[in-house]
């Protein structure tokens, strides 16, 4: 709190200076904007709504699992709840979260560009997202969908009586928004870097977004094809996956996971990029092993394409294919481990301050480490047989996607909040929320590891009584976690009006985005910046101060 106030400054030399927020007013100025910063805000608004919707579904799921009997909801309703929780959270929140909000806002600023390479395509990608959201909303309002977010065939093409086609089309359409964003970022990084911003001077967040964009460009089209084939089979009875029509149901799983496993890296890589930014700033040090962290992002992106078969160890895939996928899945853990070690080493002999973004980074490193290590359990053929399709898997991927990806997202949102809004958030409440989320998360999801080993299958509406104690613990953690997520929504919105004004660089961070005013002007830079230093030259900055 105090430090925040201490940093509050008068807005700048000219109080009436136009920034991207007050350069224009009215709804049209937002809906037709081609400013990457405003588009980021449009995304922020949408994904926040989606996060709330997905969170409500999650709360309902946890409520049902409080008791062994299926008593809170009908079985069909429960099945729709977890399905829609997954679809909304993955396609409409997690995948766009960091790239489309923080990436959109920061990437051009960080490389010294005035906008993305294709500003209109950037706006188009938001509209495509909105069309996908309309289909998704229709699927929900029309009665929901119950296939699980994985849409496994032949259940989704023959058996399910629910709104499969609208839901699948929602995923199909929103995928194109991802492809367009990825394309835009890749071209921007290649063509729009400021003079002197060489590849190895780029902030690691840019590297992470770049690696993510590669995956988005190359994997998402496969999802589009797969979902289209699904629609063809369900709608027109063209046999592709259904054995009764001469198809192969396991083929769907191969195609689906060829996208959806890399999609996990779409969710976690940007978060890792955020961590690299924050960990250096709040320990006032250059990152340890810049090139290792940068290349590990690319390593994850490349190897991540070759591990999809680990979702099929018990699907009837050949044992030798399983072996290969197992080995590759073990190998993809190495670049992640390298990142964790390098971040930890960065702290050594730093000047560490415990500001909110850094608290999220501590949380991220701890939870991601557990999530990553439990991933090894699932890469192990002989053990995965017992664990797959149980709550162990549910716990594992929530440690990665919630403990990892969302912690990183919130860390980044707080870190760049002064830049985005020009206001400081209340540090005291932000710290409370960060600690609250960490505790609530572990209370909710750690018991699920134990449930999984005990043998509770996932997607169970009712369950045998011996699983109840752990389920009650898990459900008990959920409200704590929920409060943790509500707090930032309240105080961040509050801060937009009442927060103290932020200086251009409240964290004394390196990076070009901090050389612009807070909030930046529409064109970001008055003149094109020239880069003469490596990223994260905190030692030089500290020397200047001394």
């Amino acid at each position, binding site marked *: 709190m105090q430090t925040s106030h201490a940093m509050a400054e008068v807005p700048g030399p000219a109080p009436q200076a136009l920034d991207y927020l007050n350069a224009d007013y009215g709804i049209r100025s937002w809906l037709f904007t081609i400013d990457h910063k405003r588009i980021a805000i449009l995304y922020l608004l949408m994904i926040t709504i989606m996060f709330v919707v997905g969170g409500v579904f999650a709360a309902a799921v946890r409520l049902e699992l409080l008791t062994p009997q299926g008593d809170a909801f009908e*079985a069909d309703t429960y099945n729709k709840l977890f399905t829609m929780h997954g679809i909304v959270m993955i396609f409409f929140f997690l995948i766009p979260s960091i790239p489309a909000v923080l990436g959109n806002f920061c990437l051009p600023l960080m490389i010294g560009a005035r906008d993305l390479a294709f500003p209109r395509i950037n706006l188009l990608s938001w509209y495509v997202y909105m069309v996908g959201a309309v289909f998704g909303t229709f699927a929900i309002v029309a009665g929901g969908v119950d296939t699980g977010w994985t849409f496994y065939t032949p259940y989704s093409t023959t058996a399910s009586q629910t709104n499969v086609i609208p839901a699948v089309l929602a995923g199909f359409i929103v995928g194109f928004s991802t492809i367009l964003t990825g394309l835009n970022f890749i071209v921007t990084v290649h063509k729009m870097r400021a003079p002197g911003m060489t590849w190895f001077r780029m902030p690691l967040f840019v590297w992470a977004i770049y690696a993510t964009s590669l995956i988005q460009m190359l994997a998402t089209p496969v999802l589009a094809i797969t979902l289209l084939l699904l629609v063809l089979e369900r709608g027109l009875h063209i046999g592709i996956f259904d054995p009764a029509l001469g198809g192969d149901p396991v083929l769907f799983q191969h195609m689906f996971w060829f996208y959806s496993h890399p999609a996990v890296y779409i969710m976690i890589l940007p978060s890792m990029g955020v961590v690299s930014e924050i960990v250096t700033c709040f320990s*006032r040090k250059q990152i340890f*092993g810049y090139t290792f962290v940068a290349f590990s992002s690319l390593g994850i992106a490349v190897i991540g394409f070759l591990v999809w078969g680990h979702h099929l160890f018990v699907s009837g895939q050949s044992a030798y294919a399983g072996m290969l996928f197992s080995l590759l899945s073990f190998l993809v853990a190495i670049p992640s481990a*390298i990142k964790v070690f390098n971040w930890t080493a960065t702290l050594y002999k730093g000047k560490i301050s415990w500001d909110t973004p850094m608290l999220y980074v501590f949380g991220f490193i701890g939870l991601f480490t557990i999530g990553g290590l*439990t991933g090894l359990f699932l890469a192990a053929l002989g053990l995965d047989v017992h664990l797959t399709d149980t709550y162990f898997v549910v716990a594992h991927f929530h440690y990665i996607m919630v403990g990892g990806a969302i912690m990183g997202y919130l860390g980044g949102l707080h870190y760049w909040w002064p830049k985005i809004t020009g206001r400081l958030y209340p540090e005291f409440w932000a710290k409370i929320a960060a600690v609250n989320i960490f505790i609530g998360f572990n209370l909710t999801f750690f018991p699920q590891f134990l449930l999984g080993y005990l043998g509770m299958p996932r997607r169970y*509406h009712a369950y*045998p009584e011996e699983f109840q104690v752990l389920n009650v613990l898990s459900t008990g953690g959920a409200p704590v976690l929920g409060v943790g997520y509500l707090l930032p929504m309240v105080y961040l919105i509050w801060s937009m009006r009442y927060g103290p004004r932020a200086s251009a660089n409240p*964290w004394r961070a390196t990076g070009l985005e901090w050389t612009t005013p807070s909030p930046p002007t529409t064109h970001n830079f008055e003149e094109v910046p020239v880069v003469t230093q490596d990223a994260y030259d905190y030692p030089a900055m500290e020397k200047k101060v001394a």
Partner: protein
Amino acid sequence: MSKLLFFLPEQASSVAGPVDLFFFFMVAVSVFFSALIAVLLVFFAIRYHQSGAATAPAAGVVVGPEPEHAHAQGAMLLEIVWTVIPLGLVLVMFAWSTSLYFTLVRPPADAVAMYAVGKQWMWKFQHPEGQREINELHVPLGQAVKLTMSSEDVIHSFFVPAFRVKQDVVPGRYTQVWFRPTRVGRYHLFCAEYCGTQHSGMIGWVEVMKPEDYQAWLSGAAGGAPRQTLAQAGEQLFTERACVTCHPESGEGRGPSLGGLPGAAVTLEGGGTVVADDGYLRESILNPAAKIVAGFQPLMPTFQGQLSEEQLVQLLAYIKSLGVKPAAEAPAPPATKD
């Protein structure tokens, strides 16, 4: 008694112990690395804490000379160490878990063949002696059981936590799972692959019995012994559906003789060979034109949609019971012959 820890399911099969052992190894490695990172994180965060270092520059802090280059070599060494050690560890994990997996998926030679069919939302089992069960499977203690499984509708998954085995049950093909029960008792059977409304109701029990109790159960403790064994039921079908006219035991029919076929290599029309496993036999009944045996005409009609999964299994059992032509040696008991 068998519950060592509250989150450990009972160990009731020959593989449960080895799987748990590997699990504990993984837990140990994970705890070590999580603790290492956590301790370092907390220690550094406290030891080097400097409140407001990012927001308000502390006056008069003297920063020493740039340490980066002086320690470049040490840094490289660290990078190598924390790449190579995890790499070595994951390779150990890979080797161990893969050998475990091959134990899990390769049924031993003495395994008894039983059959399972999954459908929304129940499990149906058939014993070689002809008993049929729904949502319950009785098996003898110590006897390896090989389940050949198929589905009538969507994908299901056969999961017995106490046995540490799981295998998806996929429509249109056979999948296999095997286990050797090592403890008498009733154990949960779950469907582990989401299959619709009553997915969580598609559960049952595997009941492991002492061999003598199992024999008593087989011979009618539960409502009388069945009229026919599985193979006999298959033989009856074989006659009723007129399979026998083209596939007579004499081997002189329009179709190839089936005696001694299962497990043998079959030469196909147009070159190539195929091993006559369950999947091949299934395909040859449902879609006979897919693979034609060398020297024969594609005359056989399809039986797709005309045989239930259970009937298919009966036919398979019958074909497996046929001796090598023409009765050169006494056929082995159908149960163990495979």
